[in-house]
C-alpha cells in the first residue's frame, strides 16, 4: 500500500503543479479568445458526496470543455461567512460564471444577486437558494422525503410505528425531507412516528443514535433514514435485532447492505442524490454563456429511486468500491455527456 500511496501523492502533486501552471497560462489566453473562467464555490469538502461532486465537475470540464473553460474550485468550509467572502473574491476577479454548492440555502442570496448584477452567470446546485437571478439545479428535497414516506407507507400497508432518522437540525434540507415524509403519512393515520433522532446525515452518529433509542422501542416497524443508512444497518447487526423496512440514500454501503441482508428480511429503498449535480451546473453555466440557456431557471433533476430488485452490480452498486461512495452518476434527461464512477473518485 505504501508504494501505492506514494505513487498517488506524487501523481497528485504533479497534477497540482500542472493545474497551477495551466491556470496561470490560461489567464492571458482569456483575453484573446472565449475561454470562460468559471469558479466553483463549494462549502465543506470533508465529506464523500462533496469530494465526488468536485471530482465530477473537474472531470467534466477536462473531458468536454477542454480549452473552453478554466475551472477554479474553492472550499470554504461550513462557515457561511467564508463562502460569502469567497464569492466576493470571484466577483472581484470578474469570472464569467459562478457555480455554488451553498453552506446555507438563504444566506447567500445578497452576494449571489450582487454577482448577477455584475453580469456573472450564477448557477446554484444541490441545495436551492432563493436568489431569483440564479439558475438552480438540484433534487426537490420535499419530493425526496415524499418518496421515502410513500414507500414506507406502502411497505407497511399504512400501519406501523416508525423512527425518523433526521439530518442536521436547523438546515433547510432536513426540514424539507421531513416535511415530504410527514406529508406522505397524512393519508395514513395508522402510521405513527414514535421517535425522532438526529443522525446528522452521518453514518456513525446515526448508528449510535439508533442504538440509543432501539431498546426503548422493542417493536418498531420501520425507519426513515434521510441518510446515515449504512450506520443504521450496523446498529441492527450490533444489537442483533431483526431488520425492519428502512429507507436510505444512494450510498454504495447501503445498496450493498440491501443486497446482502435481503434474505435476512431487510426491505429497503435507495433514493439517490447524484453528485453529478456540480457537472450539470457547469453545463448549464456554459450553455447560458453560449447564449443557449435552459428554458427554466429552476431545474429539478429526477430522483434515482431503486428497490433491491433493481440493484445491478457494476451499474448502480459496486462490490469493489468502499461503502462511502455515492453510486448514482447519471442524471436522466440532463443531456450531460457520460461520466463514470471512476471520474467521481478522481481516478
Amino acid at each position, binding site marked *: 500500500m505504501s508504494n501505492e500511496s506514494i505513487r498517488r501523492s506524487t501523481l497528485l502533486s504533479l497534477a497540482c503543479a500542472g493545474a497551477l501552471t495551466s491556470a496561470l497560462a490560461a489567464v492571458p489566453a482569456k483575453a484573446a479568445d472565449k475561454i470562460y473562467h468559471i469558479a466553483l464555490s463549494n462549502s465543506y469538502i*470533508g465529506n464523500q458526496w462533496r469530494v465526488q461532486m468536485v471530482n465530477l465537475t473537474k472531470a467534466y470540464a477536462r473531458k468536454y470543455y477542454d480549452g473552453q473553460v478554466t475551472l477554479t474550485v474553492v472550499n470554504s468550509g461550513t462557515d457561511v461567512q467564508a463562502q460569502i467572502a469567497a464569492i466576493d473574491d470571484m466577483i472581484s476577479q470578474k469570472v464569467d460564471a459562478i457555480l455554488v454548492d451553498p453552506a446555507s440555502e438563504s444566506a447567500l442570496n445578497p452576494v449571489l444577486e450582487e454577482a448577477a448584477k455584475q453580469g456573472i452567470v450564477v448557477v446554484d446546485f444541490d441545495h436551492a437558494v432563493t436568489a431569483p437571478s440564479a439558475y438552480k439545479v438540484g433534487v426537490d428535497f420535499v419530493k425526496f422525503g415524499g418518496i421515502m414516506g410513500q414507500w414506507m407507507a406502502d411497505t407497511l400497508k399504512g400501519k406501523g410505528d416508525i423512527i425518523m432518522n433526521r439530518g442536521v437540525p436547523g438546515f433547510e434540507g432536513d426540514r424539507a425531507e421531513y416535511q415530504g415524509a410527514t406529508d406522505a403519512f397524512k393519508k395514513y393515520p395508522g402510521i405513527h412516528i414514535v421517535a425522532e433522532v438526529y443522525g446528522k446525515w452521518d453514518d*456513525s*452518529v446515526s448508528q449510535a443514535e439508533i442504538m*440509543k433509542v432501539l431498546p*426503548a422501542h422493542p417493536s418498531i416497524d420501520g425507519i426513515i433514514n434521510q441518510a446515515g443508512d449504512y450506520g443504521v444497518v450496523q446498529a441492527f447487526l450490533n444489537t442483533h435485532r431483526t431488520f425492519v423496512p428502512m429507507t436510505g440514500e444512494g450510498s454504495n454501503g447501503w445498496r450493498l447492505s440491501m443486497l446482502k441482508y435481503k434474505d435476512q428480511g431487510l426491505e429497503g429503498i435507495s433514493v439517490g442524490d447524484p453528485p453529478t449535480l456540480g457537472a450539470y451546473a457547469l453545463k448549464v453555466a456554459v450553455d447560458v454563456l453560449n447564449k443557449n440557456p435552459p428554458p427554466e431557471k429552476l431545474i429539478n433533476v429526477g430522483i434515482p429511486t431503486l428497490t433491491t430488485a433493481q440493484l445491478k452490480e457494476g451499474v448502480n452498486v459496486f462490490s469493489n468500491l*468502499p461503502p462511502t461512495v455515492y453510486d448514482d452518476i447519471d442524471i436522466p434527461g440532463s443531456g450531460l455527456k457520460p461520466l463514470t464512477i471512476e471520474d467521481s*473518485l478522481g481516478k
Partner: protein
Amino acid sequence: MTNTRRMRNSFARPVVLAPLTITGCTVLLFLVGSILARGFMAPSNVLMLLALSADLGIAAIGETVVILTGGIDLSIAWNVTAASIIFTGITQGNEGHLWIGVAAGLGVGALAGLANGLGIAKLNISPIVMTLGMNNIMQGLTLIYSQGTPSGSAPASIKEIATGWLGPIPIIVLVWIGLAIVVSACLHATRGGRYLYSVGESPMVSRLTGIDNDFVLIAAYTVSGFCAGLTGILFTGFSSMSFLGMGDQFVLPAIAAVVLGGASIYGGRGSYAGTFVGAFFLTVLTTVLAIVNISIGFRNIIYGLVIIAAVLLYRAYTRERE
C-alpha cells in the same frame, strides 16, 4: 492569584466529589429514563450505553492529560479521522496487515500530537491556535492521502473488539475499563503523572523543582494524539468503515467530559475517573433526550440545563468562601 492558590489548596475535594456527584446524576438520569422506557435500567442497556460511551471516553484520555497541563486539544476531530482512514487504507479489511495498520494509525495520531507539543512547548504557540491549525493540517493531509475517498474497511478482529461481547459484557467496555485503570495508575502513582499535575499547577514552580516542562508538554500532546489514533481505530470497528468527518463528533464532548469530571481548565487538577463518569453521563443524557419526544431545540436547552445543574450540585459541596 490568591484566588487560584486557595482553589489549589482544596483541590483534592472536587477531584473526589465531582465524579461522585456526576455518578449520582447519572443514576438519576437512569431513573428518569426508566420512567420513559421500560427496561432502561436493565443491565444489558446499561452495558450498551457504556459501550457507546467508550470511544468518547478513550478520546477523552488524551484530552484529560492535556487539560491537566493547562492546555487544550482541538485537533482530535481530524486526528481520529486520519488514523481511521490510514488504518482501513492499510488493512483493506484483512487481518494480515492488522498490526501494520494499527501501528500506522497510532503513529499518525502520535506524530500529530508530537507536532502539537513541539509547537506549543518550543514555539510557545497558544494551544488553541496550534491544535486548531493542526486540525486543518490533518484534514488536508487526510484528503491528500485518501484522494477524498477512504478505501478499505475494518478487519473482523477490530469489529469484534468494538462491537462484540465477551459473555454478558461488551468487549469495548472491558478495554475501556482496562485503559482507565492503567491511565489512572499512571496519573496518580508515577513520576510522569506527578509532573503533569505539577506543570499544570504552576509551570514556574515545576521548572524550579527541576522538571523539564517542555518535555512534559510534548509528551502530554503526543499521548493525546496517540489516544485520538486509538479512538480512530476502535471507532473504525464500530462503524465498520472509515469516512471523512467521522471524528468531528468527539471534540467538544471530550472537553465537556473532562471538565464535568472535575478537572480545572487551568490545569493541575482533575482525574481520569472523573472523565470516565463524565463521558458516560453525557451519553446517558443524550440517550434520555433522544427518547423524549420533544423538538430538538428543547432537547438542546435541556442538555445545557442538566449540565449546569450537575455542576452546581458538586459546586455546592466544594464552595469556597472568600
